[in-house]
């Protein structure tokens, strides 16, 4: 317990046999941090099958929990084998602490080991329950969304603007950088292959169509899932931990109006804007690569891009971006709402929200492409 490490004789014990009694002489300084715990001590003492264990502590110096662990283990082992544990020779303070330990016998909590089939069943039921809650949330969004559109929801405009700024202008820089690079990468890939056929002009088509139909919406959604979706889930999970959600419930404030609707509105409203910006910046990235590596002129690149793009492709991209925005907002809010109340649950919620949003976005994108293929868009 000294602030400086004690430089005394290290803790020790010796057994002397006196008839059917084992007398344990305790000596030296017992500091847990330095000497640890001798796990086999009790067995060595009881191996001689004494009737009684007594103690001598005249030469015992400074001690801490190392001594209490030693004595407690010995006492438990003695009780298990019917040996009398006579603690009168111990220091009064140690006897007091031993009494404290004896009041609460350590019991190993039996770990539930449910059979495999039961575990599968529990997982399945919990998955169904989660699906049902998510469906309920979607239903609530549809019903309350209708109310909100008519301006009758209790949503605060300042919350919506705050969420919109966070999901829009604040994300512009990272969306620009990623889409610029993706546009450039598409142009590089196209240039490598199309050059072989003397069809360099079609680099512009590939970049334009690639960005507008697919990449601008997809990459923007992935960025927003990681950046904004994760933040939504972490924010709502932290509110769970602070009982802020309980406080909203206690006042009867609809969670949808206060928490979820502003986020869905913000992400749904900002995603198409970011998508449009992403398209423009992506095409710019392709233009830079095409002019530098293929020697194309800016005019020919832009004209070719204009010819290759159609309104339906833009419509497809816009629909994708809106759907991705709704999906990310719903998934993130749902994950945040079902989170636990500890600090680690906040981290888990953020991770789950990002993973689920990205997987959901890619799956939804595949469905969109399938439909577009069938409809020949």
């Amino acid at each position, binding site marked *: *317990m*000294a*602030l400086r490490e004690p430089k005394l004789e290290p803790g020790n014990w010796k057994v002397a046999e006196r008839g059917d009694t084992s007398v344990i002489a305790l000596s030296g300084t017992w*500091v*847990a*941090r*330095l000497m*640890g*715990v001798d*796990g086999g001590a009790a067995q060595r003492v009881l191996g001689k099958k004494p009737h009684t264990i007594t103690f001598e502590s005249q030469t015992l110096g400074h001690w*801490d*929990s*190392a001594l*209490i*662990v030693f004595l*407690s*283990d010995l006492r438990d082992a003695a009780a298990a084998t019917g040996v009398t544990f006579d603690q009168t020779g111990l*220091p009064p*303070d*140690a006897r*007091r*602490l031993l009494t*404290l*330990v004896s*009041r*609460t*016998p*350590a*019991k*190993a*909590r039996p*770990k539930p080991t449910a059979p495999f089939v039961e575990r599968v069943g529990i997982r399945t039921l919990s998955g169904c329950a989660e699906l049902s809650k998510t469906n309920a949330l979607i239903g609530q969004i549809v019903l309350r969304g209708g109310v909100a559109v008519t301006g009758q929801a209790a949503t605060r405009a300042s919350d919506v603007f705050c969420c919109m700024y966070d999901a829009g202008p604040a994300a512009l820089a990272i969306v620009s950088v990623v889409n610029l690079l993706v546009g450039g990468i598409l142009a590089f890939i196209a240039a490598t292959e199309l050059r072989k056929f003397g069809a360099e002009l079609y680099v512009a088509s590939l970049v334009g169509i690639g960005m507008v139909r697919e990449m601008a919406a997809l990459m923007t959604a992935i960025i927003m899932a990681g950046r904004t979706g994760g933040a939504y889930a972490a924010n709502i999970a932290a509110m769970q931990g602070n009982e802020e959600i309980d406080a909203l419930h206690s006042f009867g404030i609809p969670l949808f109006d206060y928490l979820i609707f502003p986020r869905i509105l913000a992400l749904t409203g900002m995603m198409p804007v970011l998508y449009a910006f992403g398209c423009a910046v992506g095409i710019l990235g392709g233009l830079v690569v095409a002019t530098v590596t293929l020697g194309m002129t800016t005019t020919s690149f832009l004209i070719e891009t204009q010819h290759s793009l159609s309104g339906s492709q833009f419509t497809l991209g816009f629909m994708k971006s809106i759907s991705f925005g709704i999906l990310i907002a719903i998934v993130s809010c749902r994950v945040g709402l079902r989170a*636990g*109340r*500890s*600090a*680690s*649950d906040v981290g888990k919620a953020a991770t789950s929200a990002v993973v689920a949003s990205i997987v959901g976005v890619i799956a939804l994108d595949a469905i969109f492409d399938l439909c577009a293929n069938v409809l020949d868009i």
Partner: protein
Amino acid sequence: MTDNFGKPRLCVDALTVGFGETIVQQDVSFKVAVGSIFAIMGASGSGKSTLLKAMIGLLRPAAGNIHIGEEDYWGASEERRGQIDRGFGVLFQSGALWSSMTVVENVALPLRMLSNLDDASIDSLSRIKLSLVGLGASGDAMPAELSGGMVKRAGLARALALDPAILFLDEPSSGLDPITGKRLDDLILELRDGFGMTVVLVSHELPSLFGICDDGIFLDADTKTAIAHGAPRALRDGCKHPTVYAFMHRENLASDPILPKETQ
């Protein structure tokens, strides 16, 4: 274990603490005797926890110094301060258990990080600390599964992990029912007597202050300094300062602006 009772374990001399330009407490001086339970008292917002932060190395004081034994705590190098910190055990107001670990892992972590002990020794030492605070059966639970009183006791077991010379307790019984609070107070007394630790306790819970504290200091939020020294019971029975008197007897201050005029 309390042979040195009466000698100062911790000396605070003309200490001023605050945040930036804001002074929370100034010119606070006191000594904590070895083996005593010392109370830092005062109303909410008087700076008790801020003073505690300066004592456990979380907030550098604006002026004054703190001696741990013979050593100037804030005058020491950061490395030496880290070594001194290993002689401290701290129970935070919220328990501050690490939520991603089980209770026994919470207690084991300081031993795992700061000692070279083998896993079996660390496990035995951690579980005995939990048994001492009455949580022997809850070692494998997660902090989120514990009740408020259990969280405090688990925090206390963690504070005992390195067998500290000085135990700092921030509002140990606040938020607990009277029976659980009393049990925790008794536990603190028994652990102090058993291990011979020095205890510094921040509290405004009168039953705890009167029940277990040997000495103390009263911090005032208005004058931003200590206005009374002594054992809480002695201050209750003998101190005439109106703020201290009102605090110790749960009475309204005569100058309280929220009181109706006729009662002032």
